């Protein structure tokens, strides 16, 4: 058969496939109908075969080019992005993530760094006799004045009480900062700097508010406002920075312990040697991908904590509830965090067997 004739004949099928592609990309799957989908599959296979045989057919190059694009489009319609299995979300959230966090060296590192610096800065700012002007140097004199004016009034009378727009603002603002902290972590040094800066500023502010330089009333207002949402928010910052560092370190050191790997992550040609403590070396880019896979769930947990903290900050902290109630909320939140990270996160035997 002549090549020209062959192309004329196939053209009908190719164009039908093209029309089906356009239809599938613009309308929902259910409205297309089973018959059309079956037809699409047949035509796709036919086009694939035409492409595979293009060489032996001696098709002209522009037709081959056309076929590549056609098959590419059809391929894009045939293979769709996989939907998330929402039935597994509970398992991921309450079994996998806490264990991941409990074992993660980076989160441990950021945890110790943050609290060390926080407590140190707090201690130094709270003792202005020994460390004069420390708080003003770290936080800035203007900011300290601003805080003192802000907390001159009781929290319940300051912000017109709890508002929905306040909650939305805190979600937007704080989670945005958390995500930035996470992303900056890829540079390691940048991530640690942001973390230490936050720790120093927060610690100095807390310490200054507790120092004798500040009047009793202001400091009481400050702690009344801060207590309730503190546990969630500070933990969320630590988690976000830890997740960021996990990505940064996986770039610096492309070694992963075999026991922490999933089966499909072993490099090609590597056999599991039953020596679970063996370290597997990766190319940096693959190591980065594995690091990101580990870090994203931690960042997800951090984002959830940020949102919970924003809710508490908007609804409970500025509310006219008595201070004891807010302290109870803080204790309850801390308890929840303990249960989540330690009880749920503690490594267990059954997870090794599974």
């Amino acid at each position, binding site marked *: *058969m*002549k*090549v*020209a004739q*062959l*192309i004329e004949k*196939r*053209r009908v099928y190719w*164009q039908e496939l*093209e029309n089906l592609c*356009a239809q599938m990309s613009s309308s929902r799957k259910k409205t297309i109908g089973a018959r059309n989908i079956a037809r699409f599959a*047949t035509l796709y*296979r*036919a086009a*694939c*075969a*035409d492409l*595979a*045989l293009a*060489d*032996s*057919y*001696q098709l*002209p*190059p*522009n*037709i*081959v*080019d*056309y*076929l*590549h*694009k*056609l098959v*590419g489009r059809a*391929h*894009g*319609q045939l*293979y*769709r*992005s*996989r939907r*998330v299995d929402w039935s597994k979300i509970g398992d991921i959230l309450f079994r996998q993530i806490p264990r991941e966090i409990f074992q993660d060296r980076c989160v441990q590192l950021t945890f110790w760094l943050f609290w060390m610096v926080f407590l140190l800065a707090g201690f130094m700012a709270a003792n202005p006799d020994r460390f004069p002007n420390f708080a003003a140097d770290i936080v800035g004199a203007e900011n300290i004045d601003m805080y003192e004016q802000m907390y001159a009034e009781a929290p319940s009378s300051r912000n017109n009480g709890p*508002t*929905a*727009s306040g*909650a*939305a603002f805190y*979600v*937007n603002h704080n*989670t*945005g900062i958390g*995500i930035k902290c996470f*992303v900056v972590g*890829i540079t390691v040094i940048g991530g640690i700097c942001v973390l230490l800066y936050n720790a120093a500023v927060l610690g100095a502010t807390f310490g200054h508010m507790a120092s004798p330089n500040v009047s009793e009333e202001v400091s009481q207002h400050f702690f009344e406002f801060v207590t309730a949402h503190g546990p969630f928010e500070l933990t969320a910052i630590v988690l976000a920075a830890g997740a960021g560092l996990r990505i940064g370190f996986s770039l610096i050191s492309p070694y992963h312990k075999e026991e922490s790997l999933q089966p499909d992550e072993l490099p090609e040609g590597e056999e599991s040697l039953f020596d679970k403590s063996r370290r597997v070396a990766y190319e940096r*880019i693959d190591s980065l*991908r594995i690091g*990101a*896979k580990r870090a*994203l769930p931690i960042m997800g947990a951090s984002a959830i904590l940020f949102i919970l903290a924003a809710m508490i900050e908007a609804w409970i902290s500025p509310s006219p509830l008595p201070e004891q109630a807010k302290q109870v909320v803080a204790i309850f939140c801390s308890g929840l965090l303990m249960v989540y990270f330690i009880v749920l996160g503690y490594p267990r035997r059954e997870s090794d067997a599974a």
Partner: protein
Amino acid sequence: MVAPWNTEAIDSQFKVVTPENIAFNYQVAGPFRRLLAFLLDLAIRGAVILAFFIALSCAGLGSVFVNAGLEDLMFALMTLAAFFFNWFYMAAFEYWWNGTTPGKWLLNLRVTTDEGEPINLFQSAVRNLFRYVDMWPMVPLPFAVMREEMTPEPVVVTFLFALIVPIFNQRFQRIGDLIAGTMVVIEDRSWLMKIAKIEDDRARLLADYIPLNFVAPRSMVKAVATYVERRRYFTTARRREIARHLAEPLLDKFGLPADTSYDLLLCALYYRTFLSKHSADGTKEDSQLVGDGTTREHSNPYLATASVKVGAESK
């Protein structure tokens, strides 16, 4: 085996092998087309927010809210919408729309994995969260430093990382793409071109002088086809210059007079290969490929494997 020529090393074509064991090429999208798509998305987001704002302030929708005492709720919704627009607009669209956003869809771009497969939620989230890195390096404006007011300094977002990182890898991947293992491909609709017509009767006559037992090798067929499809853009002198390299040895081989037009000879070869009755016979009836259930022949060695495969799949 890349499309027309073997230009794999320098081309932006990327070979994908599908689960059906078919290899085809995707064209990887370059930074500037993607920049355009990004700007379109930015404009769409801006337009939606603007339309929302206009609806609230001018069309009186806002006063309805205020009168109902829901002003607070309205502001909350607006802030939340801004938050999701800012961080999750791209990721959500790429997840729901099979790797495209409105801007990408308008420019026929699609995000796939490195292997050409569709992306999942994890990948769309990672590649879009790391958009923040693309803005680096952020440079504070010099006059702000001179004013000694460090806190509210205006920062210039240079977007240099978004330009530099894609240049240094083969698939124009941003940092987010590298981390998530994704790439952006062009999914053009291209028009099916017809076989070039040979209007010149002399070419058809000349085709008869080409020896019947001459079968052009594949690379030569490709070269001839490319030449004939594009020859109408060239002047006569240019045609002669280009056709000469192939035509001169061929004239020699066929024993034709050396003053034959080079252009004409290539046209004749094209006619002979694609249009005449003697054209290459490696083809088969399309009814087999589309699986209408007719008998299959295994006469041609090239087709044996393919037709068995198609037959197996059509069951």
